[in-house]
C-alpha cells in the first residue's frame, strides 16, 4: 500500500481489516507483522519561511531534500537527526516522518533540544481513518492539548503522520572541537559537566573511550567561536591535556551515527540516564563497545547478542532501548500505572490496534 495523498491514506486506513507496518524510508529498523503501509508517496516541502524559521513538509520528504533546502538559506535542523543506516545495515532514503516518529535527536540535543522540541505541528490519520491536526506552524502555541509531543516518538503506534511543521535555526558560521584526554568515564563525565555548566554554549559533549578523549563542540560566529574555545580550554584544562580536533564536522557525524559500531557484531542499546550515573552504569554493563554522548546522559552500548542488558541496570533510573537486536523488548517496560496510561492512549488513538502492533508494548 502506497498512497499518494493524505486522502488516499485515510481511505486505506478506514478500509483496513488487519494490522499494518508503517514505513517511510525504512532505514530505522522497525520490525513488525502486517502488510507494509508506505508513506513515501506523501512527499514534498509545503512551505518554508526562512524569516520565520519554519518549514512544513509532507512526511515522505527525504531528510536530505529538507537539509538541502535549508542550507540554501543558511539554516538547518538544529536537533541534528541521526542517520541509522550504517548502524542498522539498512538501505533506503531517510524521511522526515521517520525522524519525527522516532524522535531522532543527535549530539546537539544537550544544547538546542530534541526533535520533539522543534516540532510545531502535525497532521496524522488515526486508527479509524480520520485526519487529525494538532499544533500549527508558529513557535508559541498553547491552544489545546499538545498532541504534537505525544506523536513525536510514538513510532507510528498512535497514528500515521502525514505532515509535520518544524522550527529551524541558522547554520553556524564556524565550529571547533576541543579534545580533552581523560582517564576513564568518571573523569570524562566530570569534564563534560564542567563544560556544559560553563557560559560558553557547548553544543556537543561526547566521550569516546577507545580514543580516550572527551569531545566538546563550540559553534557560532568565527570571532565568538575563537573566544569561547579559549575560555573553554581554561575550564577543562585541569582534567587532562587539551588539543584541537582537525575535522570537527566529521567527528560529530561519527558520534551522531555511532560509526564506531558500524560493521561490528552484537546487539546495540541506547541508554538514557542522568549523566552522573553513566560511569557507574557503564561499568555494570560489561559491554564490548561504549560511546557516551549528551554529556554522559546518552550511552551507546554494544553487547553480546541476546544479552538482557536491562537486568544490569540495578538501581539506576532512566531507560534502555534495544536499537539493534531482537532478543529483548525494544522499549523499556514501564511501571504499571504508566504502562496502563500508554496502553489506553494507544487504544483510543488506534482502537483496532492495527498500527505497528506490539512495537511499543
Amino acid at each position: 500500500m502506497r498512497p499518494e495523498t493524505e486522502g488516499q491514506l485515510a481511505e486505506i486506513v478506514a478500509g483496513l481489516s488487519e494490522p499494518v507496518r508503517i514505513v517511510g524510508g525504512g532505514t530505522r529498523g522497525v520490525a513488525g507483522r502486517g502488510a507494509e503501509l508506505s508513506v513515501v508517496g506523501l512527499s514534498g516541502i509545503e512551505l518554508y519561511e526562512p524569516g520565520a524559521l519554519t518549514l512544513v513538509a509532507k512526511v515522505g520528504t527525504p531528510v536530505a531534500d529538507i537539509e538541502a533546502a535549508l542550507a540554501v538559506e543558511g539554516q538547518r535542523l538544529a536537533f541534528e537527526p541521526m542517520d541509522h543506516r550504517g548502524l542498522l545495515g539498512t538501505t533506503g532514503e531517510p524521511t522526515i516522518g521517520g525522524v519525527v516518529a522516532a524522535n531522532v535527536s543527535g549530539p546537539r540535543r544537550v544544547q538546542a533540544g530534541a526533535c520533539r522540541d522543534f516540532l510545531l505541528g502535525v497532521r496524522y490519520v488515526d486508527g479509524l481513518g480520520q485526519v487529525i491536526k494538532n499544533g500549527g506552524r508558529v513557535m508559541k502555541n498553547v491552544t489545546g492539548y499538545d498532541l504534537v509531543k505525544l506523536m513525536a516518538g510514538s513510532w507510528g503506534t498512535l497514528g500515521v503522520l502525514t505532515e509535520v511543521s518544524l522550527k529551524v535555526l541558522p547554520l553556524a558560521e564556524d565550529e571547533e572541537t576541543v579534545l580533552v584526554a581523560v582517564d576513564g568515564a568518571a573523569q570524562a563525565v566530570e569534564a563534560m559537566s564542567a563544560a556544559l555548566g560553563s557560559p560558553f554554549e557547548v553544543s556537543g559533549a561526547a566521550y569516546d573511550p577507545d580514543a580516550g578523549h572527551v569531545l566538546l563542540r563550540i559553534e557560532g560566529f568565527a570571532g565568538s567561536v575563537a573566544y569561547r574555545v579559549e575560555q573553554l580550554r581554561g575550564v577543562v584544562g585541569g582534567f587532562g591535556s587539551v588539543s584541537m580536533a582537525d575535522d570537527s564536522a566529521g567527528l560529530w557525524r561519527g558520534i551522531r551515527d555511532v560509526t564506531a559500531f558500524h560493521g561490528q557484531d552484537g546487539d546495540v542499546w541506547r541508554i538514557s540516564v542522568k549523566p552522573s550515573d553513566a560511569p557507574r552504569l557503564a561499568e555494570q554493563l560489561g559491554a564490548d563497545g561504549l560511546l557516551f554522548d549528551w554529556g554522559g546522559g546518552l550511552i551507546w552500548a554494544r553487547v553480546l547478542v541476546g544479552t538482557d542488558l536491562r537486568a544490569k541496570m540495578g538501581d539506576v533510573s532512566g531507560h534502555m532501548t534495544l536499537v539493534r537486536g531482537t532478543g529483548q523488548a525494544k522499549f523499556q517496560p514501564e511501571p504499571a500505572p504508566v504502562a496502563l496510561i500508554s496502553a489506553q492512549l494507544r487504544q483510543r488513538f488506534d482502537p483496532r490496534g492495527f498500527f505497528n502492533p506490539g512495537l511499543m508494548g
Partner: protein
Amino acid sequence: MEMPTPNAAVLARKARLVERLQRVLPEDAVIHDEAETRAYECDALTAYKCPPMLAVLPASTQEVSDVLRICHEEGVPVVPRGSGTSLAGGALPTADSVILGVARMNDVLETDYANRIIRVQSGRTNLSVTGAVEEEDFFYAPDPSSQLACAIAGNVAMNSGGAHCLKYGVTTNNLLGVTMVMMDGTVVEIGGAHLDAGGLDLLGVICGSEGQLGVVTEATLRILRKPEGARPVLIAFDDNEIAGHCVSDIIKSGILPVAIEFMDTLCIKACENFSKAGYPDCHALLIVEVEGSEAEIDYQLGKIVEIAKRHNPVELRESQSADESAKIWLGRKSAFGAMGQMNDYMCLDGTIPVSSLPMVLRRIGELSEQYGLPVGNVFHAGDGNMHPLILFDANKPGDLELCEEFGAEILKLCVDAGGCLTGEHGVGVEKRDLMLHQYTAEDLEAQMAVKDVFDPAWLLNPAKVFPLSVTETRREAKIAAE
C-alpha cells in the same frame, strides 16, 4: 461566561466532604467558610468570579493524593490552582468544586549543578527557582511576565513562555520530569533527570494540559549557566511594515537574539508617559537583545545595526552600559502598567507567522475603528506571539461585551493568518468557545480522548479548554452515572 449548572447532589454532600477532608489534612488546610472561600473566586482574569464550594491547601504529594481520592469517591470536581495568576481563567472555580491550592508546597528538593537540574515542589514560584541557583550563576530560563508570583505548577499546566523563549524555549522545553497525582489518587512518576522518554512522551502532553490530566506536585527542571552578559539595541521606525521586514532580516542573518520585542504607536506613547524611558516619537519600536561576552555582544549588535540601517530607521540606540540597557527595557517592562493607567484593557495572546505581521496589524487597525475601541500592540516579534491590548471602559454598560467581541475577532484573525488563539496564556475559560475556529470537532475529540484516559470521570478543572457544546455528552454521562 456560561458555566455548567452546579451539581446539586455534589453541593448537598459538602458537610460530609469537609469531614472526610479534615481527617486527612491539618485543620487550617480545609477552607469551607463562605467568607474565606471567596479569596479563591477568581484568578488574574478578574472579569469572571465564582467562589468554590471549598478550598484545600495540601502540603505534600501524599496529602494531594488523599484529597483527590476522596473527591474522586465523592464525585466532586477539583480545580487545581498554582498562584492564581492565569490571564485565561485557568483556575476559575465552579460553584460545586474544590480548589486544590499547591501554595504550601514550595520546597527545593534537590539542586544538582553537575547534571544541571533542580527538583522543586510545584507551588514554588518561577523566579524563586532561579533564586535557588543564582549563587552558582545558574538560572531557570522560562520567564513569564508574572514570574515573581506565578507557580511552577501553573507554568507546567499552561506551558508558560516568556520574552526570552526565542532562544531558550518555553516550559515544555525545560521540563524533564514530574510527580503527578491522578484524579483517583494514584501517584505517577513521569520522566526524571534524563533527557528523553522511554516510551510515549506523556510528559509532553501533560505539560500544557491546563490541570485537566492530573495535579503535578513536583517537577524536575533544567537549569542553565547564566550568559556572561546581555545588551539590547533600540530601533525605531516610522512604519510597522518596515519594522516587520527588519525582524525577518535579523532572523535570516543567522543571529539568534534572546528577545525581539515590538511596540506600536499607542504603546510607545503610553509607556513614555508612564515611565519616561526616553523613547523616540515613532510608529514602531523594536528592542533586540543579544547575549555573550562583551566582544560577542558588540559583534552581534553591530550586525543588527547594519541590517536595521538598510531599513532607514528614525532612530538607533545601542546600549553601552547596564544603565542604558535598563532604560531601554524600562518602558517595555512597564507596558501593561502604563496601559492600565490609561484605561481598563483586555490583553490578548494570539500567535501569527511573523510574515503575516503587517497584514494582521493593518487589519487590527481597521477593526479598531469599526468597534470604536483603541488597541495597543506589544509583541514578542521573534516568535510571532502578539499581545494586542484593547482599551475599554468597564463602567460603561456594554463596553466589556463589545471588547470581548472585538477580541474574538482578533483571535480569529490570528488563526486565519496561519497562527493560533493563544501563544502562552492558555485557553482556560476565556478562549474555550473559540476552539472550534482553530480545530475541527474531530481534532478536539482526539484531545478529549487523552482526557478520557487520564481523568475518565472528567472531574479535573471542569469547563475549561473545550467548548461546553462539545463536552456536553461527556458531562451528561457523568451525571447519569451518579
